[in-house]
């Protein structure tokens, strides 16, 4: 990843993360197929809802015939971390027009957010509309296509885990968190390590008493507050 912020550089930078999308996208397609969702519904979920983990939850809730209101609330809870990420990312685009801000915002994901945070470490805190859009659009298309291919292949591949593809997403986050750790000079290594340890501990204790998605939010917010306090003490 270099300092260039062109559309082309965005396409180049997002390609490594695509592996994570393909693995999980195929998995989602296969799950959707076995849950009796049609290709049209899979395409609708991927291209209109476009929300990785929430799509798995929506699929299982549709299968269980849960009420629409419950499905909407679950989707909001699972995706509420996006409010944090978008608020964080939006600061880099304040100079852009409202339309451009909304365009970027409507396609932000965990992965493109993390990628952008890594990128701005290399560009002295700058991001561009062209670069972010390239990353967003490639991610969006790859995700949608992978889920549809997964749904088509659903009947053929019974066990994608055998090839280790399900680990792609975890590996991607490990890579992104490591790159963030070594390149965020603003916060520094020791403070970030302490915050990471704190987040892991909070998450570990919270998942026993609340849902994983809620624990993720609690650990994130607690980690930010802990980091602010530690920074004050330095």
């Amino acid at each position, binding site marked *: 990843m270099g300092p260039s912020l062109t559309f082309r550089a965005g396409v180049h930078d997002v390609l490594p993360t695509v592996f994570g999308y393909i693995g999980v996208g195929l998995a989602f397609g296969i799950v959707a197929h076995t849950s009796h969702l049609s290709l049209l519904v899979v395409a609708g979920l991927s291209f209109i809802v476009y929300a990785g983990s929430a799509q798995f939850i929506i699929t299982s809730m549709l299968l269980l015939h849960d009420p629409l209101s419950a499905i909407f609330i679950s989707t909001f809870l699972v*995706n509420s971390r996006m409010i944090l990420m978008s608020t964080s990312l939006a600061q880099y685009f304040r100079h852009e027009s409202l339309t451009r801000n909304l365009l970027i915002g409507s396609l932000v994901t965990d992965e493109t957010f993390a990628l952008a945070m890594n990128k701005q470490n290399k560009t002295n805190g700058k991001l561009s509309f062209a670069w972010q859009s390239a990353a967003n659009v490639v991610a969006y298309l790859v995700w949608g296509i992978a889920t549809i291919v997964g749904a088509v292949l659903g009947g053929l591949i019974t066990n994608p885990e055998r090839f280790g593809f399900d680990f792609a997403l975890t590996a991607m986050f490990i890579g992104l968190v490591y790159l963030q750790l070594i390149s965020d000079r603003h916060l520094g290594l020791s403070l970030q390590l302490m915050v990471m340890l704190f987040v892991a501990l909070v998450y570990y204790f919270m998942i026993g008493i609340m849902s994983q998605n809620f624990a993720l939010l609690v650990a994130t917010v607690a980690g930010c507050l802990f980091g602010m306090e530690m920074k004050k003490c330095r």
Partner: protein
Amino acid sequence: MSMSLTELWTILGCGLVTILSRALPFAFVKSLTIPAWLINFLSFVPITIMTALCCQSLFIANPGHLATLNVANCLAAIPATIAGVLTKSLLMVVVVGIMAMAVLRYFSIG
């Protein structure tokens, strides 16, 4: 190729909920001045959210009890992390991670 009315409403409703969560903060940040404490808070969001997302795959939740480790994911995370330290390349972390997991599955470990 078919879609029931429930499925259609689910897609439209969840799509609306998701796009609002994503795009509205951009509109707010653009039109309002963000206080210094919030910027300070948000500066920790990348590292905390990425750590929490990693933890989600490294721990297994046991409702009512303490979490346990996802042994296979933790084992595969070791070579993936080493690949990251050595190459600083996201692609290498993902490729090594997938290969490590395929090897673990082949020998039915974890």
